[in-house]
């Protein structure tokens, strides 16, 4: 079992619901401080978005953040260098599109993740069927491969994915790209289908944008991922304080 999964299973065993905020690396010069603020406010793990020019699974907010990060010159290497400044005990999980790793080299990418303190990776455009090579590259570097399950996934696929995912299983609440939503989604159903075939920790993401949504989602799962709503704050010029109070609000709602 990869270290990430060991950690997250232990977290679940402790009775704590996981709160996983998402940041786009490099979107501001001080983005690492935002990560620290989130940890300080009670995040259990952090998703580090590596910006890509063509973020097919992302809505306008994360698109915009990725564009700004790229325009600021962010690269896989540069953000890894930035991460060296980060001192935190919570796990970091990379999130990006497959071309970034494909181009950097799979073996080399996995090594880089590991050496930069990222113990997992979410690659939304890399489905199970195409993931063999990447998985073996990760195997050598203790990088957990986190797969998504969608509301449209049929039972047989859910079963394969739940078996293959490492660290946790990402349950998409909605048939939509990342972004805010008022719709409560189908997270509960997706989680129960995953749980029927696997005991891997299962977190709900896609469209969780308010503490209330996070509370509801975490009550039926092992944790929640909060992306666009947080990234929006940073796009609006919010600093570490704003991040801390935003994440803190989610923490309190989940823990209530």
């Amino acid at each position: 079992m990869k270290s990430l999964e060991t950690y997250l299973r232990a977290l679940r065993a402790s009775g704590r619901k996981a709160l996983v905020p998402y940041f786009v690396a490099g979107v501001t010069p001080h983005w690492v401080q935002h990560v620290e603020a989130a940890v300080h406010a009670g995040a259990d793990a952090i998703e580090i978005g590596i910006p890509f020019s063509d973020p097919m699974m992302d809505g306008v907010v994360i698109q915009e953040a990725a564009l700004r990060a790229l325009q600021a010159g962010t690269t896989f290497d540069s953000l890894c260098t930035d991460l060296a400044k980060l001192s935190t005990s919570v796990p970091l999980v990379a999130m990006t599109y497959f071309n970034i790793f494909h181009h950097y080299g799979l073996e080399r990418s996995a090594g880089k993740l590991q050496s930069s303190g990222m113990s997992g990776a979410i690659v939304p455009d890399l489905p199970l069927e195409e993931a063999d090579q990447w998985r073996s590259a990760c195997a050598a570097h203790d990088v957990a491969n986190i797969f998504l399950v969608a509301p449209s996934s049929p039972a047989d696929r859910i079963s394969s994915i739940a078996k293959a995912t490492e660290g946790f299983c990402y349950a998409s609440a909605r048939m939509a790209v990342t972004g805010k939503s008022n719709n409560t989604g189908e997270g509960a159903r997706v989680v129960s289908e995953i749980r029927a075939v696997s005991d891997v920790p299962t977190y709900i993401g896609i469209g969780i944008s308010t503490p209330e949504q996070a509370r509801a989602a975490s009550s039926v799962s092992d944790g929640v991922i909060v992306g666009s709503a947080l990234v929006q704050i940073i796009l609006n010029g919010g600093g570490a304080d704003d991040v801390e109070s935003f994440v803190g609000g989610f923490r309190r709602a989940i823990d209530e």
Partner: protein
Amino acid sequence: MTDSKVFMTPPDERGHFGTFGGRFVPEALMPACLELETAFVEAWSDSHFTDEYRKVLHEFGGRPTPVTPLHRLSEQLGLRIFAKREDLAHTGSHKINNVIGQTLLTKRMGKTRVIAETGAGQHGVATATAAARMGLECTVYMGEIDTERQALNVFRMELLGATVVPVTSGSRTLKDAVNEAMREWVTCVQDTHYCLGSVMGPHPFPWMVREMQSIIGTEASQQLQQLGVEEPDLVVACVGGGSNAAGVFAGFANSSTRLIGIEAAGGSAVGKGSPGVLHGMRSLLLQDEFGQIEEAFSISAGLDYPGIGPEHAYLAASGRAEYFAIGDEDVINALQVLSLTEGIIPALETAHAVAWILQEAGKQIPLGSTVLLNLSGRGDKDVAQVREILRAQS
């Protein structure tokens, strides 16, 4: 022909042509891609479906399009040139072949709506056309910059009942229109088919679109035989995503004909690209040193795509087909030459293939060779642009 290999057969069961192709899509879209694959495989082996497809192509689409001997150009260049006239198909290019197939398949799958991406608007107009004919709803994603440059095509699509959505993300051109169509498809995949416009995207699109375009090559090979040409020495086609080229190549893949794809110099995925993953496929892409996708730049909107269909990447790697690039400066001249000598104003895309023939006659193309030019589309859509360019030059 390279040894005993057989080309342009179906890809492997996960959609690979050699190391290219595949299906790199979000999990949310996997079921739709699988459903589509199943539906396509069934339909394509069901003669009711293929008969209907051919009937609509004939009655509505204007097929078969003729093969025209280009007498005067042939004489000038010392070649025997024939043109497969996709410019005479309904809506003015080969794009209609694919959209008729896909909209029929949409109905067969019980879906009531199609979405599509478009660059300059050719595929968007074709999709809107087929959707109108089939009684399907239609939404077309088009980069905001393109909606401004091609306002008349936006209006055409609207006349045909489609909703055109300007895409404001990224470079606001074709590449982003594909991204946006994919994003939207996630939200409506149950009742909506994504009618992709070229031999690109996730499996089964590259294969399916090639099959739906292969009627070009099938017809052309028979028509050339009727004109006394057993096998042309070369087949030349322009390559954006690569659908017209794939369609015509398919008729000659397992002959000794040289297959030549002509890219725009500013969008030359074979010449200047490297392997990568975008829009659901592994193929050759224009990208920077960090794997960020680069924009293509070409005088012709239809070749303004930073990638190429995965089967072309495979044909290039295997040596079965050859790919060359033509710069903007030679394209206008080629358009003028074909207009003047043969009375056919080609699309700017097609003019790339013409330019290569003009350039290579007596060089890469030995004098006396028999050449099939795939005349993928008509230039009516481009004359305003060409006029501006020539004015600016004079």
